[in-house]
C-alpha cells in the first residue's frame, strides 16, 4: 500500500466521521414513535393535529426541531408545566422516535416567500 492509498483511505474515514453526526437525527423509528405517541395524543391529537389551539400542531414539523424542543423540555431549558414532566422520562431514542413519527405526518408548512 503506497502513501497515496493510505491518504485517500484516511480522507474517506475523516469524511465519514464528518457525516456521522447528521445521521443521529435519522435514527428515529416512526413506527416505534407512533406507539410511544399514545400519551401525546391526548393533547396533540392522534396524528399531531392538536385538540386545542393553545397546544401546537406537530404534524409535519421538522424532525430536528422536534428533537431539540423535547430535549430542551427534558433539560428544563424550555420550561412548561405540562411538557416538563412529559419529557422528563424520555430517553434519547424515545425523543428521536417521536420526532420521526410527527415529522412524517401531513401538516405544517414553511412560509413560502412571495
Amino acid at each position, binding site marked *: 500500500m503506497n502513501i497515496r492509498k493510505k491518504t485517500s483511505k484516511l480522507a474517506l474515514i475523516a469524511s465519514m466521521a464528518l457525516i456521522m453526526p447528521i445521521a443521529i437525527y435519522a435514527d428515529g423509528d416512526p413506527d416505534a414513535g407512533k406507539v410511544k405517541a399514545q400519551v401525546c395524543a391526548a393533547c396533540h391529537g392522534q396524528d399531531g393535529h*392538536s385538540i386545542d*389551539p*393553545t*397546544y*401546537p*400542531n406537530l404534524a*409535519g*414539523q*421538522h*424532525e*430536528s*426541531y422536534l*428533537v*431539540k424542543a423535547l430535549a430542551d423540555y427534558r433539560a428544563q*431549558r*424550555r*420550561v412548561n408545566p405540562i411538557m416538563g414532566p412529559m419529557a422528563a422520562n424520555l430517553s434519547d431514542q424515545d425523543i428521536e422516535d417521536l420526532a420521526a413519527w410527527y415529522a412524517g405526518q401531513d*401538516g*405544517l*408548512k*414553511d*412560509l*413560502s*416567500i412571495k
Partner: protein
Amino acid sequence: MRYLTIPVVMLATAGLLLSAGPARAAGDIEAGKIKSYTCTGCHGIPGYNNVYPTYKVPKIGGQNYEYLVNAMKAYRAGERDHKTMDLQANSLSDRDIEDIAAYFASLGSD
C-alpha cells in the same frame, strides 16, 4: 307595550355584548401578512438551519393562533430563550403579535 320595553332592551343589550366578539382579539390576517415579512428571512426558507445548535427552523405555516401568540409573548417576556426570536419579539406590540399569528394560522387549513 311598556312592559315589553324592559325585556327588549335587556335582550338588545345582551345581543350587543355577545356580538362584540370573543374577549381575545383575533388578529388581522392582511396586516399580519405585511408585518411578518421579516419572519420569512428564516421561517420562509424551506429546510433553513439554525446554527449552534443545528436544527431546522420550525415550520409555522398552519400553526395554531393561540399557540403562536403565546410563543411570541413568551419570547418577548424572556420566558423562552432564543437570541433572534427574543430580539424580534421585543419589537412587537400585542396587536402585531395577534396580526402575525392570524396570518400564519391562516396558511394551514387545506
